């Protein structure tokens, strides 16, 4: 309720054009940007999936800590240049930047399609998370479909009203709330069940030693391969800062120092993930057989006879986590489809007011599609999510080429993206090609870089004065 009020209230001061709606007029300060990025990663995956992984796969969950350690560092180096180009040319999305560097409308459309395809399973996951929370906490009185619908009705209400400033304020509120909750629960549960964190791990070390050291367990309970664990870290670290809804936050920073400061302090959110993992570890021996494993946290909570206030706080925290990521996602997906696909390919003459209205319509449509997958279909989320990370990471070589390699050409990056995505699809369609459980996205990146370099060198270089505006020199 409070988050709805703050969300609606913050919409008053922002300008109505897409630059205001999408990039918050490039005026975000440190705290806002920090919590926007933090709360977006503290999604249903972190709050329900994190404990779920620690509970069912043990140390495999450490991969989340690992990629977060280095995932934001590239921003420190390329972020200021991206922000500067955004200010100079008025970019507010990733595809605008890249298609302008390579002077290619089709690149814009390809990037927009990759992004939106990758967003939908991610959004589906958040919705299902919200549904789980309502369902477990009301002991089944609110079914998953209704829970997801209520949570995302609220999300739509404030994204609709306020644009990105709404997203920023609500993320700040939710982010602070999550941090307090993470530590309280993460330290309280081991204490209550085992008498402390140290005693808990001593007991677990004797009972399930393989779950306490990397790479942890695989999906069917066997010891995970190092190939699977390492490549999950690699693909996530590469894909992490490239997610278009994340990347476009670079354009919202007030200045370069604020952007860098946000990157520097980002790992503090990773520290807050550690107690969240304790919650999952606490459940391994005391609550065997919870299925799906992602429900471990609400299940433990409901069994503890806690005061209603604590349950209420948990509900609000988990819903906030799911909703703050969800609103960032629907909002980014809408903006990207309108600005980078529809406007570029069909209607270059769209006015600002029309764009803003179209973004709002698409926000509703995209939420609807994700809601369909969350409730009606039984598609495997893990499979979809793996596929989407594989695709998103393919944008990384294009960005590197755009900013650091003057010789890269339009046919080069298009060939790279095509080869990369084709390899990802191939490895997903024929899983028997896999070796050591290495993530398909890794092979995609190899194919991508090879094609990008060969085709770029085989085609004539682009106009040096144009390129010089973009690359580091």
């Amino acid at each position, binding site marked *: 309720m409070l988050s709805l009020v703050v969300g609606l209230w913050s919409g008053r001061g922002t300008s109505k054009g897409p630059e205001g709606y999408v990039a918050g007029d490039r005026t975000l300060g440190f705290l806002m940007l920090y919590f926007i990025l933090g709360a977006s990663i503290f999604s249903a995956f972190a709050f329900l999936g994190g404990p779920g992984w620690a509970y069912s796969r043990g140390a495999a969950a*450490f991969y989340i800590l690992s990629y977060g350690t280095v995932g934001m*560092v590239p921003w*420190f180096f390329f972020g200021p240049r991206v922000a500067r180009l955004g200010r100079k040319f008025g970019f507010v999305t990733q595809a605008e930047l890249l298609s302008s560097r390579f002077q290619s409308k089709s690149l814009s459309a390809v990037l927009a399609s990759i992004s939106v395809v990758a967003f939908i399973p991610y959004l589906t996951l958040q919705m299902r998370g919200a549904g789980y929370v309502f369902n477990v906490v009301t002991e089944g009185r609110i079914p998953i479909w209704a829970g997801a619908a209520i949570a995302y009705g609220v999300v739509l209400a404030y994204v609709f009203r306020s644009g990105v400033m709404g997203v920023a304020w609500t993320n700040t509120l939710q982010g602070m709330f999550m941090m307090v909750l993470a530590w309280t629960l993460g330290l309280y549960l081991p204490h209550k069940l085992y008498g402390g964190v140290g005693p808990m791990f001593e007991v677990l070390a004797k009972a399930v030693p393989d779950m306490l*050291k990397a790479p942890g367990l695989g999906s069917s309970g066997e010891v995970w391969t190092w190939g699977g664990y390492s490549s999950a870290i690699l693909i996530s670290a590469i894909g992490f800062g490239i997610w278009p809804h994340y990347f476009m936050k670079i354009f919202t920073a007030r200045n370069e120092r604020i952007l860098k400061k946000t990157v*520097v302090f980002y790992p503090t959110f990773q520290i807050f993930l550690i107690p969240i993992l304790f919650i999952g570890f606490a459940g391994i021996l005391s609550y065997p057989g919870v299925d799906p494993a992602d429900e471990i946290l609400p299940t433990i909570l409901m069994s503890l006879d806690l005061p209603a206030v604590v349950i209420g706080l948990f509900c609000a925290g988990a819903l906030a986590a799911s909703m703050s990521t969800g609103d960032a996602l629907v909002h980014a997906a809408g903006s990207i489809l309108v600005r980078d696909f529809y406007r570029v390919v069909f209607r270059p003459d769209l006015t600002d007011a029309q764009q803003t209205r179209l973004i709002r319509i698409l926000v509703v449509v995209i939420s609807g599609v994700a809601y369909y997958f969350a409730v009606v279909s039984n598609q495997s989320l893990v499979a979809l999510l793996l596929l989407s990370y594989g695709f998103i990471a393919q944008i990384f070589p294009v960005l590197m080429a755009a900013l650091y390699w003057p010789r890269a050409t339009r046919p080069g990056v298009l060939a790279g993206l095509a080869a990369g995505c084709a390899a990802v699809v191939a490895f997903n369609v024929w899983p028997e090609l896999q070796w050591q459980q290495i993530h398909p996205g890794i092979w995609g990146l190899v194919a991508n870089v090879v094609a990008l370099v060969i085709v770029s060198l085989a085609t004539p270089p682009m106009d040096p004065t144009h390129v010089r505006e973009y690359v580091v020199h």
Partner: protein
Amino acid sequence: MRPRLFSQRLDPRVLRLYRVVLGFFLLVFLAMIWPVATVFSRVYPLVFGLPFSLFYIATLLVLSFCVLLALYLWEGRTGNSCDPPEDEGPEKERREDS
């Protein structure tokens, strides 16, 4: 037309510092995956109550944070950046022309 990670306009000593920092993060990354991580993948000894494997990752996390924080503070003090803006006023322009 060759790839360039850092601006040519950087002072050689500053450039070396940025290269060292980037190299450090590359090492941190390599330390978290196969084969380096296999060496540190152990349950015992428990440090601060954490399994050694988790303690190891947490240490890398804190170390990375400190290094980047130091770089940020140093940039603030000296006004350096790995990719300084081009148009820094007429004085800079003149120097480049001559």
